[in-house]
Each structure stands twice: as structure tokens, then as C-alpha cells.
């Protein structure tokens, strides 16, 4: 009987859609012959299509609902597959081996075009992990993260241009400048929370971009900086292909380092302070957690990664200009964190790969690419609002009962 109800609703949806699209899908005025064409066939397609998708949508929602009810009633003790892969050694060790093998042979099997796409995706993996410290762990909504990324990229571009400093010399400098700017932003926003914090960080991101765009003497304005050298290996310069492979492995190494560090941070004292801060600021203070220090370290550490990746980004593309550091970029990184599952390392990694690789491989659909991408995002948020991998929060283990 529920089915009949659903059918009726879907039918209404399709009628509504037919009505809405009627002017554009059915009527066509031919201005040359001065006649109106009535394309009735189109409305049937719209009707049938919207009916089908609406019904599918309802059916999936219904299934999810019943699944949840069953879970609540304790009928099924189903541990989701994703959780099992993460927690059972029997499952995650082979998975890890597969990923390791795939990652190490990837650049030798695929074309340089594919490697480049993958490097971009990994850049976002690390950016996502960095922002995850700020947003996922400490719960501070930062909409200007890309500013630190820009700081890193421009520090390489400018230091190389003026002082001829190499990639390896600037990498730590980029990270350090990230920290400095993180703290610089951290101080004024210490007292802000939620929406206000989001607005101020958004403003900060735009300020950095506007400075880069308009201060021609300093940053060369919109035309940017070109001919930035690719990273060298003990003074040895690679060919284009070899350099791409080199950057690829560099990024893999950096990803591993990031995962290691974030994992350690999560379980440390400062990690606990971040979680406390995210959950309740008043309680956090009442328990003697230094709010200022906790927030500043979150901003500074998050910015370190953005600064470092900025340097690598500049070295990879050999050309930077302010257009690479727009708000859209911040929004993208934030989507990766939110979609992947806030606070979950694996979630953020998968989120980045999906969000960056999907649009690339959807190129086959050319014009409909962004439409499809948007649809996938919306569907994701409806069916998995907690993100791809919901955060498997660490539970403390105690001896004794």
C-alpha cells in the first residue's frame, strides 16, 4: 500500500515537471517560417523520465529509512563494510598492500596526463588532511584556507625569482610562512565562533588573493609568475616526464608523512583539547584547557600543510597566478573534508580522490559534466550526510572493568 502512495507522489512530480518544462521543451517558435512547432514527444520523455527518477529516489529513501529503523530496533547488527575494512586486520592488510602496489606502479603504467591528474588529486588529499585539522578536529570553520596555499606557492615563486632559491630550500620556508600567516589569522579570530569565524576567514582568503592580484610590484598582479623551476634531485634536473614522476613520489611521501602526523596529533593531548574545543567551549575552559593556545595551534598546523603544498603546487605547474587561489578552491577543499567525513583520515583521502578525479573522468560527458557532478554531491549529502566514512572515533581503552 505504501507503494501506491509513492507511485501517486511520483506521478504528481512528473506532472509538475511536464508543466514546468512545457514552454522550453514543447513549444518552439520558428522565426523564419513564422510557425510554432509543438513537440509533444518531448513532454512524454520528460514525464516518463521524471516519474522514473522520482520513484527511484523515493524508493531509495524508503529503503534507507527502514534500514535505520531495523538498526534501531536491533534486528540487524550489521557493521558496515567500510568500518570492517578499517578495523579488521584480515581485511585492511590486503587492502593496504593493494593500494601500495598500485601507487608504486601507477606512474610507470599510465601516461603523463594521468600522472598529472593523480598528482593534482594527491595535492588535494594533503590539503584536505590539513584543513581537516582545523575543521574536522578543532571544529573551526575556515573558509579561507586557500590563502595559506597561496602563501606557500608565492613564497616559492618570489624567492626563486628574486634570490634564485631552489625548491628544497623554499619547502620549509613555505611551511614556516604558512605557520606565521596561520597565527596572524588566528589572533583576530580567537574570539569568534561558527558563522562569524567563517565570514572572517572568508574575508582573509579574499584579502590575500586581492593583494596578489593588485600589488603588481610585489606579486606581478594577474599575470602571475612563470618559469618556476621543477624540483631538482641533489642538483640534478629531470626531463618533464621524469620530473612529473618525481613529484608524484614526492607527494606520496608527503601524504604518508601527513597521515602519520595527523594520526599522532589526533591521539595526543592537543588532539584531545581540539576535540573538547569542538564539542563545548565553555566546558573546555572550565576544565583548564587553554582556548587561545588550542585554537592557534589548530590554525598554525593546518596552515603549515597548505604552505608546504603551495610550494609543491608552484613547482608542479611552473606557473602561478591569483586565479588559482579563489574562494572556489577553499570551497572545494572544504567539500572534501565534509564529504569525506569530518575528522576521518581515510574519509578525507577518499573524498579528495572522488571529488578531484570524478570531474576529470566525467569529461566524456562534456557539457553535462558539472551538472552530473552537482547531482552526485546532492545525492551524497542526502544518503550519507555523515560523509563517505563516518569518523570511527577512538574510544579510550582502560584496564580493569
Amino acid at each position, binding site marked *: 500500500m505504501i507503494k501506491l502512495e509513492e507511485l501517486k507522489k511520483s506521478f504528481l512530480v512528473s506532472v509538475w515537471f511536464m508543466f514546468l518544462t512545457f514552454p522550453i521543451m514543447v513549444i518552439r517558435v520558428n522565426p523564419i517560417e513564422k510557425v510554432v512547432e509543438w513537440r509533444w514527444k518531448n513532454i512524454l520523455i520528460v514525464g516518463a523520465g521524471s516519474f522514473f527518477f522520482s520513484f527511484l529516489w523515493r524508493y531509495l529513501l524508503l529503503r534507507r529509512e527502514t534500514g535505520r529503523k531495523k538498526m534501531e530496533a536491533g534486528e540487524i547488527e550489521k557493521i558496515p563494510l567500510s568500518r570492517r575494512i578499517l578495523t579488521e586486520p584480515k581485511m585492511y592488510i590486503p587492502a593496504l598492500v593493494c593500494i601500495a602496489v598500485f601507487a608504486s606502479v601507477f606512474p610507470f603504467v599510465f601516461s603523463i596526463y594521468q600522472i598529472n591528474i593523480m598528482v593534482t588529486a594527491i595535492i588535494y588529499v594533503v590539503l584536505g588532511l590539513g584543513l581537516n585539522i582545523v575543521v574536522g578536529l578543532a571544529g573551526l570553520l575556515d573558509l579561507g584556507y586557500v590563502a595559506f596555499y597561496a602563501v606557500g606557492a608565492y613564497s616559492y615563486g618570489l624567492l626563486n625569482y628574486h634570490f634564485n632559491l631552489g625548491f628544497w630550500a623554499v619547502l620549509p620556508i613555505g611551511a614556516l610562512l604558512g605557520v606565521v600567516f596561520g597565527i596572524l589569522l588566528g589572533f583576530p579570530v580567537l574570539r569568534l565562533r561558527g558563522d562569524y569565524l567563517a565570514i572572517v576567514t572568508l574575508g582573509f582568503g579574499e584579502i590575500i588573493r586581492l593583494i596578489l592580484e593588485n600589488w603588481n610590484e610585489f606579486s606581478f598582479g594577474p599575470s602571475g609568475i612563470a618559469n618556476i623551476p621543477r624540483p631538482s634531485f641533489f642538483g640534478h634536473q629531470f626531463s618533464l616526464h621524469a620530473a612529473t614522476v618525481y613529484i608524484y613520489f614526492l607527494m606520496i611521501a608527503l601524504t604518508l608523512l601527513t597521515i602519520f602526523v595527523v594520526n599522532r596529533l589526533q591521539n595526543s593531548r592537543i588532539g584531545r583539547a581540539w576535540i573538547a574545543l569542538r564539542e*563545548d567551549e565553555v566546558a573546555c575552559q572550565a576544565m583548564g584547557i587553554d582556548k587561545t593556545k588550542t585554537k592557534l595551534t589548530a590554525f598554525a598546523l593546518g596552515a603549515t600543510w597548505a604552505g608546504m603544498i603551495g610550494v609543491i603546487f608552484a613547482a608542479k605547474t611552473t606557473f602561478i597566478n591569483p586565479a588559482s587561489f579563489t574562494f572556489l578552491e577553499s570551497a572545494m577543499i572544504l567539500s572534501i573534508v565534509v564529504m569525506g567525513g569530518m575528522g576521518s583520515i581515510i574519509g578525507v583521502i577518499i573524498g579528495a580522490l572522488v571529488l578531484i578525479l570524478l570531474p576529470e573522468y566525467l569529461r566524456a560527458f562534456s557539457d553535462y559534466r558539472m551538472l552530473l557532478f552537482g547531482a552526485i554531491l546532492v545525492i551524497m549529502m542526502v544518503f550519507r550526510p555523515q560523509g563517505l566514512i563516518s569518523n570511527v572515533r577512538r574510544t579510550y581503552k582502560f*584496564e580493569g572493568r
Partner: protein
Amino acid sequence: MLKLRDVNTFYGNIQALKNVNMEISEGEIITLIGANGAGKTTTLMSISGIIPPRSGEILFMDRPITGMRPDGIVSLGICQVPEGRHIFPYLTVLENLDMGAFLRTDKAEIKKDRQYMFDLFPILAERRHQPGGTLSGGEQQMLAISRALMSRPRLLLMDEPSLGLAPLIVKQIFEIIKKINTENNTTIFLVEQNANLALQVAHRGYVMENGRTTLTDSATNLLTDEKVKKAYLGM
């Protein structure tokens, strides 16, 4: 143990505390009663350093703590159970307790204290792996008190522990407050709107009106004071 001397605290340019003077001796249960908006919470926030006073002085063990940061004040042994409990909703009961011991490093002692809390409130032991947000109001209050005790405070500040709880639970919690005071010799500063109950457990009390302390006496005297009876005890 704790002295407030002419403390003035502001929210922007609204003055919430006006020349507040108070004194608490070691081992006492002191209660601060007053109507809604009298400035009770602000008093505790000033002591904790969360809303620092604009002028005046606060001394703890004869040492000025005015202007110190909240975490420094906690490490001296002043811990607050904030109004409305403020437990960490997504952390389990155990993790909440651990947060209370954030500034401590003596692992073995922390473990002992955890067990002490479970003896104090057996229901928390049952719920130890449950997220704090899923507890009932009374259980949350018990957790908030235990969490504060995990820092081993010498002075425990409590802001309206009876707020929104059933009378039976309130009675149970007040029993525990007395017990904490006698067993560990923890000094307790109890802020309450429920004046009747508060004066029954406390040794001494202060009455606050519009940001000023207007009356102070032993709890028994306050219970029989005509003005207090009329204004706060509903008699």
C-alpha cells in the same frame, strides 16, 4: 581560602557585579543565592577567570589570581561545574571524565579517581561507554560534577546544580555535595536559585541582588531571616 575584594565585572558597558566582597574559608560549603539575573553566574565566571573583573581583587590562598588565565586558575585547584552542565555530548562518559583530568599527568591516580567517581555515582559506571549527550539530565549533572572533581579541586564552584532536575534527583545530588565536602575536605561554593535546599546543606550563605551582595550570615540564620524567607523561600 578565597577572598573577593570590591570586584566589579562588566559585559561591555553593562555592569554585572558591583563592588562584590566575599570570603570563603577552607572546608566550608558556601552558598550564593539570588534571583535570576542577580549576577551569580558572573561571580563564578570572574573567579574562574573566564570573564575577568575590570577592577577589584580576587585572592586564592592569599595569592592574587585576578587577571590570570582560566587554565592557570584551574591548575591552582579551582574548578567549575558550569551552569547548564556543559558536558561534551559526543564523548563517552569515560572520555568526559578524562577531560576533567586534562591538566593532570599522574595516570595511576587518575585511574583511582575514576573509580572513586563510579563509587560516588554508580549509574555513571553503567553508562561509561555511552556518549554524554545521551544521558538524562540528572546523569549529566552527575557527570559534570565528577568531571570537575577529576581535576582534584581544592575549591569546587557549582552553578545551579539543581537546574531543571526532578526533586528526587536534586536531593541525591545535594547528598553527594555534602559527602564530597566532608570526605575530601573540598571547599564548595554553591550557587543556587533553590535557596531552601542550598541553605540546608551550606554552612554560610550570601544573598545577591542586582550585582551586589546584600546579606550574609550563617545558613541557619538565613533560613529564619524574615526578608530571605519572603523573597527566596516563598514563605
